[in-house]
Structures are given as structure tokens and as C-alpha cells.
């Protein structure tokens, strides 16, 4: 059994009376691809942000590669983690190339041109796009630049908060496969937040279901499909299953 690269012990985050995360324990092994699903407001983004300390837990601790993140220098920690923001957050005054190269630039390095081209290729964007400004891109293109930016500094850990929300289903599917493949090739540990249970089931090794700040199901895709994980998880699995059944009826 590989060592956990990421552990949460008794992590809680309270915003006034709201408990965004509620005494959560979790360990994620190196090299795993974990999908995090759950209703809106269940605490997925908050949980992800405790890792790179965009959110400081009210209680509990998070360790990354054996170190408590609270004790690590912020900039260094964040450069080791590729983060795809739910709000994308491209810098509107920087070109696509400058956005992608920002992490290495902060570390005092210059990202070579063909590396930028390669990153664009990985997320299925044209190399010609390097000089575009973010407001000259479609929503889906912006999201893909966001993924490329997260991968640019060669992180060990990739945290993606709904990275494919604005993509058309065909590109979404292709890009999902692509990221999964990159995950293997680069030896990453990946946590991906998604609303789409089918996507979670098809891409991840492990699916976590969150509800009201707690993890209510922690299963492999196989066992979820087989009916494990409890009521909330099964309600989520029921959606794609039902869709598949109706499609089958149509073709029958």
C-alpha cells in the first residue's frame, strides 16, 4: 500500500454558524486519481483550498508529503501544487503564454516556448493561441488554459475544482481522458471536483461523496455502480444510470 501523500485529520472550517467542513478525516495515496462529488455548498471547494492554504482550517491539520502545510512557506507550497480554480482566474492583462508561464516566472525561471506549446497541446488548444488575451477566448478555452497553467510548474499534486464545467460534452469527454492520461504519464496525484457522477465514475480510481462538510461515501467506481456508498451516493449514481437506461430504450 503506497504512502498517503495528502492527509486531513479532524479538519473543520466554520464561517460563522455555517460549518463548510465538519471534522473531516481523509488520506489520499500518492498516484491516485480521486473524484470529489457532492451537492452545491457541500464544502468541496473549501476542502480543496485547505490544501494550499487559500483557506485556513478552524481546527485540525492537513499534511502534504509528510509535512503539516501550516508550517510550510506559502509560496513554495503553492508552487508544488497545480490548482485549477472553479472561477478559472486567468489574469486578464496577461496573454495565454504569460498566464501559463506565471508559476515558473515567480520562481525566477523562464518557461521555454516549446514547453508552452506542449502544454497547450496537452489541453487540446492550438499553439497559435499563445498571444491571445483571455477576453479573446471562449469559456471552455479559458478553462483549458487554466489546466495548462496548473501543469506548467510540474507539480506533484493536481487539484482541479470543476475544470470542465464550461466545455461541450465532446471536448469534455476528450479532455477528461487526456487529463487521466497525463496523470499517469506525469505520475501525479490528482483530486478533481465535479458535479458529474458519470465523469467521476469513468475517470477516477476512487470517488468521494461530500454532504454538509462531511464525506458520506468513499468507494471505488466499481462498488458504487454495484450499489455501495449509501443513500446520497446512490442518488447521484442513479442519474447517469437512468439516462443510460433511457438511451438503451430509445435504441431498442
Amino acid at each position, binding site marked *: 500500500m503506497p504512502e498517503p501523500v495528502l492527509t486531513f485529520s479532524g479538519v473543520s472550517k466554520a464561517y460563522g454558524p455555517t460549518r463548510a467542513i465538519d471534522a473531516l478525516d481523509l488520506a489520499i495515496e500518492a498516484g491516485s486519481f480521486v473524484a470529489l462529488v457532492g451537492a452545491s455548498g457541500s464544502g468541496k471547494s473549501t476542502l480543496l483550498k485547505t490544501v*494550499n492554504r*487559500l483557506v485556513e482550517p478552524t481546527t485540525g491539520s492537513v499534511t502534504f508529503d509528510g509535512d503539516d502545510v501550516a508550517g510550510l512557506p*506559502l*509560496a*513554495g*507550497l*503553492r*508552487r508544488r501544487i497545480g*490548482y485549477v*480554480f472553479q*472561477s*478559472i*482566474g*486567468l*489574469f*486578464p*492583462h496577461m496573454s495565454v503564454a504569460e498566464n501559463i508561464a*506565471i*508559476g515558473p516566472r*515567480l*520562481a525566477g525561471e523562464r518557461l521555454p516556448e516549446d514547453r508552452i506549446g506542449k502544454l497547450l497541446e496537452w489541453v487540446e488548444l492550438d499553439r497559435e493561441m499563445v498571444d491571445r488575451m483571455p477576453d479573446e477566448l471562449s469559456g471552455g478555452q479559458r478553462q483549458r488554459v487554466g489546466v495548462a*497553467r496548473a501543469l506548467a510548474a510540474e507539480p506533484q499534486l493536481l487539484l482541479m475544482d470543476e475544470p470542465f464545467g464550461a466545455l461541450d460534452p465532446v471536448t469534455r469527454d476528450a479532455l477528461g481522458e487526456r487529463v487521466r492520461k497525463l496523470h499517469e504519464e506525469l505520475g501525479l496525484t490528482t483530486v478533481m471536483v465535479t458535479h458529474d457522477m458519470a465523469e467521476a465514475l469513468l475517470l477516477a480510481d476512487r470517488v468521494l461523496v461530500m454532504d454538509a462538510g462531511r464525506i458520506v461515501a468513499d468507494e471505488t467506481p466499481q462498488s458504487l455502480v454495484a450499489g455501495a456508498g449509501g443513500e446520497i451516493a446512490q442518488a447521484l449514481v442513479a442519474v447517469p444510470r437512468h439516462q443510460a437506461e433511457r438511451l438503451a430504450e430509445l435504441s431498442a
Partner: protein
Amino acid sequence: MNGMWDALTGLGDQLSAHVILSAAAIALGIAVALPLAVWASRSEKVARASLAFASLVQTIPALALLALFFPILLSLRAVFGEGLPTLGFLPALLALALYALLPILRNAVTAQANLDPGVMEAAAGVGMNFRQRLLLVEAPLAAPYIMAGIRTAAVWTIGAATLATTIGQKSLGDPIFAGLQTQNWVLVLAGCIASAGLALVADTLLGLIERGFRERRRGLWLGGLLVVALGVIAALFAQFGGGDDEDRVVIGAKGFSEQYILARLIGQQLEAEGFAVEYRDGLGSAVAHSAAASGDIDVYVDYTGTIWTNQMKREDNPPRDEMYAQIVEWETEKTGMQVLGRLGFENAYGFAVRTETMQMRGLESIEDLANVAREMTVGGDPEFFERPEWIAVRDAYGLRFAEQRNFSPTFMYNALQSGEADVIGAYTSDGRIEADDLFILDDPRDAFPNYDAVLLLSPEASRDEALVGALRPIIDSIDVAAMREANYSVDREEDKLSFDEAARRLAERAGL
């Protein structure tokens, strides 16, 4: 039209001084506003307090704000020593910079508050520290908005800088105030056109820089910045390129024609003796006295009654020579200034009425006036009704007017002619008294003190024997008829003389 052209081309010196003052004030405003805005973006309290302060400053009339710095700097001399200037560039710079603060600060704070939180989260998330976030993200995104604030500040500052004339700083206000004083509209207009033109040019250039930031066109904003820098450098060169001005004798003048002329007369006398001179015109009465006491100006003309009531706070009214002797003694003891002597004429306050009014109402003296005052409107310059002399006369005769109105000294005479005022608090050496056929009412109760014109030297200037020697011939050389004529020659509607020319003729007539 030719006159206008000459007036405009004669403004080079004032223009360059105006550019330097405005640019320095805006630069100081930026230097204070930007760090404050950064701090404000990290603290709600600071944001609220600093914006409230800047807005409060904005509600103070610019003229008052400029004047306020005189006492403030005077009291700061306790800390910074006697070398701290209280008039001229420094107070003008500070007041205008305060004025420039609001638009820059407001735009900078608003720009930061409106930054996309997603972008700011990403900036932190990719590993930027505080400084990197500020320089790489916040500054470039806020730049166009901040630039728009600087643009507004520039237009305000260039306009308000014309008021710096009143605290003895050279600016494009000089021709405006001098022109208003003498109804020389060409001069007023020239000053307005020059300052409005300067504001337009600044607005256009800063607009280019703003657009350059907004459209991320480096050539545009760099080019705009370069032109602005060149303009300021040219102004600096024009102002300071021509050698030092350390040893200049600074001659002060209050804001009315007689003072402008006498200052020029003193200047011409000194220049003939080889001194370099410089003028601080349009000073308020109280400001002029303190400025000479503190050495900001070296020499100026004041009036015995003014010093007696305003500076010495005396309410009694002794005979002429006794009052003069006491003033000389008081100045030596209290301020260290030297009263070099009397010029030879008096410029007293008196109530003036049109000769028709005098005849119709049978007015001879202020006692007669008191009987009919309830049906009359009294006019005075803005200082008049604040002065102890007015209060003394009012109480001595029990004067009660139907209405009391303020006019600038020049417009006061027009108001009397047009009937907007029935009686005015006039100056007895004013050339318009004879020209307008006005009658000065007798003062049988001696309620108005004497107003002999006297020459005052700052403590330092009084120790300069060569200077004192050069000034001495002016003492006792000017009689009231000569002064009235000189005043009229610049105040009349037609065929006005410049102050310089009027001073030359006055000197000639005085045998200097």
C-alpha cells in the same frame, strides 16, 4: 487682440512656475494616495477614514485651504526651525497636494475593491507573495482607473493653483488677480486662457496615458509619460535655468493697485542700485505683516492704522505722531521689524458717497449718515466688515444700515455708481474718488485712525545697510495727490498704465 497676444506671451515665467507647482502637487498627491490606497485595500477602517478625510479636505474652499497653511507652517517653525518657509511654494504645494488626494485615492480604492475576486484568489493560489500580487496583478489592473483619478486631480490642481498667488506663490493667478484689481480684462482673460489651456493639454496627455494602460499599449503610455516629463523639465529649466535667486530682495504687496504700484516703485529703486528683486503680490493684509516679520518678504508698505488696530489690537485713537512713535517702538520690540519711515501720504478709510447723494440727503459727516443709514446699503471690500476699524466707527456713531454688501475693491466703485450700494467704505488715496466725483464724509468723532503709509523692513533686511540706504530716498517723497493720480492711471477704464509704468511716472513725480 494685439494686447491679448502680448499679455499671453508675457506669461512665460508664470506658466513655468504654474507647471512646476501643479506637477509637484500632483506628484506629492500620488505619492501619498497610492500607499494609502494599498493600505486601505487591506483594512476597511483605513479605507473609510482616509476617504472621509480626503472628502472633508475637498469641502474646504481652495482659497481658505491655501491660507490655512500659513499659520500651520508658522507654528511648525517651533519644530523645524526658522528656515521653514511659510509663504510661497511650500504652503501652496501642501494645500494643492491635499486637494489632489481625493480623486486619486477614491479611484485607487474603488479600482482595488472592484478587482475580480477570482483573479485575486488565483494570484495568491499560483504562489504570489504580497509584493508580487501588488506589482504583477493589482497595479496593472488598477492602473487605468488610477490614471483617470490622476487626470481629474490634474485638472483640479491646475485650476486651483491660480489661487496660490494669494499666498505669494508665482502662478497664472498673478495676471488674473492683478487684472481683477485694475479691471484689466485682457490680463484676466490671458491668465484664464493660459491656465485653461494648460489644464486641457494636461488632460489630453494624461488621457493618452490612461488609454495606453487600458488598451495595454506600451508605446502610448510611455510616449505620454515622456511628453509630460519633458514639459515639466522644460518648465524647471525656464524657472531655474537662469542662475541663482538666493540674494534677491523680496518685495511684498497686498492685493490692491496702490500696493502693486508701490512695490514696483521700490523694486525699480532697488534695481537701479544694483539689487535683484522679486515680487510677492496679492498678499492678504495679515499675511503680509507676518510674512515680513518672519522674513519671507524683505520689504513692504503698510499703514499705521492697520498695524495699530490689527496687529497691536489697540482701540484708542491717539494723534498721528504719537501713534507712529508707538508703532515704531512696538515693531522693534515685538517683531524685530524696522519701520523705516512714512512715505508722505495717507490711505485712510472713509465713507464715500456720490456727490448727488450728498446733496440730496444733506450729508456732510458720518453723524449725518447715521440718521439715514437705515434706508441705505453699505458696500465694502471683503476685509472691511471684519476689521476693528469698521466696528469702532459703527459703534462710535451707532450706524445701522439696511443692508451690508461685500465687493472686490474695484467693483465697489462700480456698485456705488450703479446704485447697488449707497455708501462705500473707500480708501482716501484711491484715484477714483476724484475721477468719480465722490465725497468723503467727515469723521468728527475721530473714529477712524490714521493710515499713514509706512515702509517696513524685515528684521534681516533692516540689518542690510546698503538696502536701507537704497530705500531711504522713498521716505517722505510721495504726497496723496501723486498717489491718487498713480492709482487712477492703473484703475481707469481707458488707457490703463501697467504697474511698472505707473510706478515709473510716480517716481518721476516724486523726484526719485
